[in-house]
């Protein structure tokens, strides 16, 4: 949360309603562009979102550029991850053996459903009716919260941003700052309806304090606690959780039962590798040297129990994809989101998926190819995401590759493909092409069709058309430079 602490009023008239995310229609691709247009139509939200995330990107630059060996660190991190992924079976078994030796119960989940069943079973065996948890994108991916709530188990998010999103019944819009798309006034409204704060008070300290007051008792009374995992270390069978609010420590240590959900790509071989990632993670995410808390979990506390659930949920399949397996290197820092000019102007919820922004575009189609078939086109392919990625994932090249996969598997609209077929035929025939663009007026009619392939003229909706000059370069060359052959 940021902003002046004592500003209770919104400048510039009545409150701007928060734009909501992508519309989900079963069987239809998510239309990110439609949701983005609604986000852009909310100028205060747009400006706040763009500014906050651009500030994170600038902070990241400042701190990363202060480290001489930054680019070497990125390369090293990339190599460690690629090595681990190439020997994942080996390191997973090593982790399992060492974790068991530490007294941790280890479970394996092939997919989201199995993960949720395992967690429920553990809770059930302990008679647990309430679960406090720290932030975990994996549990979002598994839709665990609604599953457990279906059994009457109360789930309480303890990360502030995540709690805001839970109370608003909305998915997180960013992997690190889940409520970054909201204004203070939006939070004040959510809290007034859910935890009874003053709807007219959007002071950040007031809101944070009220949230703390209402959540603390729930934390103290919880039957079980859950965390995610940033890094799982094979040689020690331990795992590390990085937070800024200390809420993972509360979630793990207050109740007697600790469950950690761990995606199988979180493995790193040795404790000495951890330093490389810890140096990169928070610098890339927020532009800070390190998260406030880097908590190591090794064994259950005396009288307590510790369980880890190792989750595949499509990761093994992704590992087998030649062009896309390196997306498993991701450490969920969100730097690609912060830098993405499209994401900053459309909001994470416009992607209609657990993972949004550039990394989301390349992960989401592995979960549901048709639903996320249009996402690879929600990118200008500018490449900034790949440049900030601390583990050197070639994100924009994978977005480009996903476009090809979508076209090859007929997941792009027929009209788009038909247009490209026509363009390909025109552009591969000099005679047809020249006939089409002969004379500038004709060019103006034809060339914009590459752009204006659909019935709505999307170019002129927001921009002026270029003016056609008197002649093409081609005509000029013909008139001025072409060597005329003299006939005998």
């Amino acid at each position, binding site marked *: 949360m940021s902003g002046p602490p004592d500003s209770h009023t919104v400048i510039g008239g009545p409150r701007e309603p928060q734009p909501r995310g992508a519309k989900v229609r079963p069987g239809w691709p998510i239309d990110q562009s439609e949701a983005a247009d609604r986000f852009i139509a909310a100028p205060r939200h747009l400006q706040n979102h763009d500014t906050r995330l651009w500030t994170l990107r600038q902070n990241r630059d400042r701190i990363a550029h202060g480290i001489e060996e930054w680019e070497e660190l990125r390369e090293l991190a990339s190599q460690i991850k690629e090595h681990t992924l190439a020997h994942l079976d080996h390191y997973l078994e090593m982790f399992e053996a060492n974790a068991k030796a530490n007294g941790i119960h280890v479970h394996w989940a092939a997919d989201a459903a199995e993960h949720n069943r395992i967690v429920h079973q553990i809770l059930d065996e302990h008679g647990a009716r309430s679960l406090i948890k720290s932030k975990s994108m994996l549990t979002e991916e598994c839709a665990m919260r609604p599953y457990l709530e279906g059994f009457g188990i109360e789930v309480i998010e303890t990360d502030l941003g995540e709690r805001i999103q839970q109370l608003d019944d909305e998915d997180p819009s960013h992997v690190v700052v889940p409520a970054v798309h909201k204004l203070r006034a939006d939070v004040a409204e959510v809290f007034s309806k859910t935890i009874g704060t003053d709807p007219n008070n959007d002071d950040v300290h007031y809101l944070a304090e009220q949230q703390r007051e209402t959540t603390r008792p729930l934390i103290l009374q919880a039957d079980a606690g859950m965390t995610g995992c940033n890094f799982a270390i094979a040689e020690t069978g331990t795992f590390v959780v990085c937070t800024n609010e200390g809420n993972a420590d509360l979630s793990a240590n207050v109740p007697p039962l600790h469950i950690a959900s761990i995606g199988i790509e979180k493995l790193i071989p040795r404790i000495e590798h951890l330093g490389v990632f810890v140096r990169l993670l928070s610098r890339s995410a927020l532009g800070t040297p390190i998260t406030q808390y880097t908590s190591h979990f090794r064994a259950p506390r005396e009288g307590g129990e510790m369980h880890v659930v190792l989750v595949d949920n499509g990761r093994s399949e992704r590992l087998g994809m030649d062009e896309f397996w390196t997306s498993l290197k991701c450490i969920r820092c969100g730097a690609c989101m912060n830098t993405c000019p499209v994401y900053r102007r459309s909001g994470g919820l416009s992607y209609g998926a657990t993972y949004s922004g550039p990394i989301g575009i390349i992960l989401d189609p592995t979960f549901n190819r048709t639903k996320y078939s249009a996402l690879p086109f929600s990118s200008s*392919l500018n490449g900034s995401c790949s440049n900030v990625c601390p583990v050197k994932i070639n994100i924009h090249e994978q977005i480009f590759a996903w476009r090809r996969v*979508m076209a090859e598997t007929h997941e792009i609209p027929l009209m788009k493909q038909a247009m*490209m077929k026509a363009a390909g035929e025109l*552009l*591969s025939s000099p005679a047809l092409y020249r006939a089409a663009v002969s004379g500038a007026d004709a060019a103006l009619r034809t060339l914009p069709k590459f752009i204006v*392939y659909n019935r709505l003229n999307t170019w002129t909706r927001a*921009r002026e058309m270029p003016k056609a*000059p008197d002649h093409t*370069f081609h005509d000029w060359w013909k008139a001025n430079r072409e060597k005329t052959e003299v006939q005998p």
Partner: protein
Amino acid sequence: MRVGLFVPCYIDAFEPEVGISTLELLERFGCEVDYPFDQTCCGQPMTNTGCHAEAAATEALFVKNFAPYDYIVAPSGSCVHQVREHLTAVDQTEEVRAVRARTFELTEFLHDVLKVDAFPWAEFPHKVGIHYNCNSLRGIGLAQASEPNKPFYSKPLELLKKVRGIEFVQPSRWDECCGFGGTFCVFEPGVSAKMGYDKVSDHAKAGADYIVSADSSCLMHQKGCAERIGLPLRFIHIARILNGARQ
């Protein structure tokens, strides 16, 4: 040195002056320049949309047109990026690989191959902001982008510094994408236009009279955006300045 001049479709149709400036500039430095008459396009509109199969015939035509030359030069980093990095729908024969490797963007050709040290005829007494097309910047390295911890360089800037009377202004987000993005500008028109408005506003705020770029496609989009929101900015391709255009 035989140079094949590639004039991308947007430049052919909308900015023939950029093609003429490129031609004259190369000739001033002693290149024997030819314009293969049957040229059309590099195939980018199709591959950018994922339709690689649909681009194959256009790519084959490109290779056929340009195979005879020592160098292929185009006043468009974006199209050169397509040829160098993405011209892959055709079989990668020796000829295809040679054409791809010999294709250069104009400013890198002037900077790296011809190693030009002066443009005695060039004078441009205006404040300019430089715009880098993202494929030119992060794809083929015309300049060092802001993200990596690496020393800054800029080939277009090095060349422009040799122009008399020119002044440079620096927008705050100098290498943020302008939102053109090829077919992105029609698939995501709202975000694309908003990015364009922000880009031209940033240059105007920095005090630019002109936005100069090595890519006409971005400039066409930005010009349309500036006109729509009523900013009195002017736009010019770098080839024209280096060839002596005064405005």
